[in-house]
Each structure stands twice: as structure tokens, then as C-alpha cells.
């Protein structure tokens, strides 16, 4: 048990005059409690008006991505005591419009994702009425790609995204490569359509904030580099 101070960004759209401000809460944190547990503790026992997104509390849904002590992470996967600071600063995701307290608008991220058609495109029906087969080697190529839970931690940390809200973003580009690398997918052209654009691949300046931010330890820059290579090879012949 340790007493920690949570400094949390507050913003109520119905109280524009007050604007954004940081509010402090003291929480008794037992060993093993995550940042999300602490936020729940505050909401349930201290201040019911505190607003944040959460759903699965087990690192699958990606709802609770937020900026804790200046770094993007999933609140449900981060143990509060492991952060090692007595004061924990919790802010909404960077580069996104704040709707209320810790809730941001994810619309630009969703638009970026839709631009790459993030679903399996196949020109033929499955060979059996059950599944499309894939060898173990072909399946291995999807490791480091399919694990993305679309929490938005990468894109909201990306300076290119801050400058261009129409940028597809590392999450969209990683998802595009996830389907392009899939042996069952035949719609490479359709996934690539939106990429060769000023809001597409070429916005990436290899800053690597996305790699730092990803709570699943994925490497969107690797996917972006592979896509760049594919695009250039397709053009040069």
C-alpha cells in the first residue's frame, strides 16, 4: 500500500470558461493495481464526474490508451507502482481533440484506418466451405502485425500526425501491411491505393515515436519501410 498523487487533466465542454486544468487526487494504491484500477477508484469513491474510456481492462480492446507521465500507454496494462513516481500525471492522447477529461475524438484515426481498406480482400471464394488455408511459414509473416489492437497510442504520438490530421498514421499503415503480407489476401492494389499520397506513406519521417509508444511492442516503422520498398519497386519496375 502506498499513497500516490494522481494529476489528471480535466475538461468539461459545458464549462468552456474554465477550460483545461489539472486536478489532483490522492489514492491508496495496493501492490498490483494498474493505472486503470486507480482511475476507477477515483471515479467510484472520490469524484464521479471523472470521465475516461475503458472496457476490457485486459489489454485487448484498446479503449484506455492515454498519456501517463508523458508517455502513451494502456492504463489497464500499466501498474501504478511500477512507474516509480509519487505523482502520476494522466493526460488524454496527444494530437487529438479532447472531448471531455481523458476522452479524445478518434475520428481522424478511424478515417486513416478506413483509407487502407483494413479487411481481407480475396478474388476467389474459400476453397472449402470452412477456411482459407495458410502454411505455418505464411502465418509466421503476420507476427508483429496482427497483434495491433488499434488503441491509437502510436498515431497520437506521431509529430507528422500532429501536423496533418489526414495522415493515415502508423496504425493504419501497420494494418495495411498486415493484409498485404497475408498470403490469403489478393487486394494489394486496393490496400495500396491511398498510400502513395501526401497524406499517406511519405508523411513518415522515421521519427520512431510510434515504436516508443506502442503498448504491444510492435514496430509500425518497420511496416512503413516495407510498404515504401514495395511502392518504389512497383514504380521502378
Amino acid at each position, binding site marked *: 500500500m502506498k499513497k500516490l498523487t494522481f494529476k489528471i487533466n480535466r*475538461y468539461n465542454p459545458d464549462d468552456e470558461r474554465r*477550460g*483545461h486544468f489539472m486536478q489532483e487526487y490522492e489514492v491508496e494504491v495496493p501492490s498490483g493495481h494498474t493505472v486503470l484500477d486507480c482511475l476507477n477508484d477515483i471515479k467510484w469513491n472520490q469524484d464521479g464526474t471523472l470521465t475516461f474510456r475503458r472496457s476490457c481492462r485486459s489489454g485487448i480492446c484498446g479503449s484506455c490508451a492515454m*498519456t501517463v507521465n*508523458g*508517455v*502513451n500507454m494502456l492504463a489497464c496494462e500499466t501498474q501504478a507502482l511500477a512507474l516509480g513516481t509519487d505523482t502520476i500525471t494522466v*493526460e*488524454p492522447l*496527444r*494530437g*487529438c*481533440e*479532447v472531448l471531455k477529461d481523458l476522452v479524445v475524438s478518434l475520428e481522424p484515426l478511424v478515417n486513416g484506418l478506413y483509407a487502407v481498406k483494413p479487411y481481407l480482400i480475396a478474388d476467389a471464394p474459400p476453397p472449402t466451405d470452412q477456411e482459407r488455408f495458410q502454411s505455418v511459414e505464411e502465418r509466421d509473416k503476420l507476427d508483429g502485425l496482427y497483434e495491433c489492437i488499434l488503441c491509437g497510442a502510436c498515431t497520437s*504520438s506521431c*509529430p507528422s500526425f*500532429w501536423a496533418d490530421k489526414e495522415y493515415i498514421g502508423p496504425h493504419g499503415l501497420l494494418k495495411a501491411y498486415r493484409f498485404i503480407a497475408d498470403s490469403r489476401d489478393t487486394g494489394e492494389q486496393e490496400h495500396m491505393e491511398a498510400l502513395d499520397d501526401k497524406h499517406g506513406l511519405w508523411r513518415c*519521417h*522515421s*521519427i*520512431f*515515436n510510434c*515504436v*516508443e*509508444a506502442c503498448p504491444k511492442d510492435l*514496430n509500425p*516503422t*518497420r511496416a512503413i*519501410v*516495407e510498404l*515504401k*520498398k514495395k511502392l518504389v519497386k512497383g514504380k521502378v519496375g
Partner: protein
Amino acid sequence: MRVIKHYRVHLGTFAWILHRLSGLGLIFYLLLHIWVIGHLAGGKESFNSIMEAFNNPLFKFLEIGLIGVIFYHLFNGIRLTIMDMGWLVEKQKPLFVIFVIVWLISWFAVSGVMYMRFFGSAAG
């Protein structure tokens, strides 16, 4: 409505910010260079007088700094190209450290030679 636009700085961000700043510096130098060379159109007198204006220790030191900026942009550009070719993307931080060492060594070596050229004969 407020949008926060900053993030914890790590080596990758640092490399990028320096790359941008050195790029801007080089554009500034290029414009200055074109302006100076433009004096050639005004004949020998005009060119000699502008070259005379730059012939002082301040500009000599700035030239040594310019080499540092060029070398940084050059070596980080090579680092970015290597990664865009698909190599060492996962090793971007060690790669940056190696290129910073190469950058500093070559800068010091060249600036030593330049210093001797600029000030060596004057001292002797």
C-alpha cells in the same frame, strides 16, 4: 478545445529535430551563397568587395560550423536511407549513436585542417 503536441523526447526524435534544423540552416546558407556569387555579375570590383566583407575570423568560425551542419545532415541522411532500404530499422538508436560518433570525428578532423588553413599562416 486544446490539442497537446509534445511527447517524451528520445534519440529518434532528437535525430529528426536536428535533421530539420540542419536542413533549414543549409537552405539559409544556400541562399546566402547564391547572393554572394550573384555579385560576380557586377564585375571584379563588386565580387572582391563582398569577399573582403566575409574575410574575418567570425565568418571563418561560421564556416567551420557550416561543415558540422553539412556533415550532420549528410550522415543522418545516410542513416535514414539505410533504414528506408529496410536495414537495421530495429536498431535505429545504436545506428544513431554510431553516426553521431562518425559525424563528430569527421567534423573535428576537417575543422582542424580548416583552422590550420585559416589561421596557421597568419600565426606563422
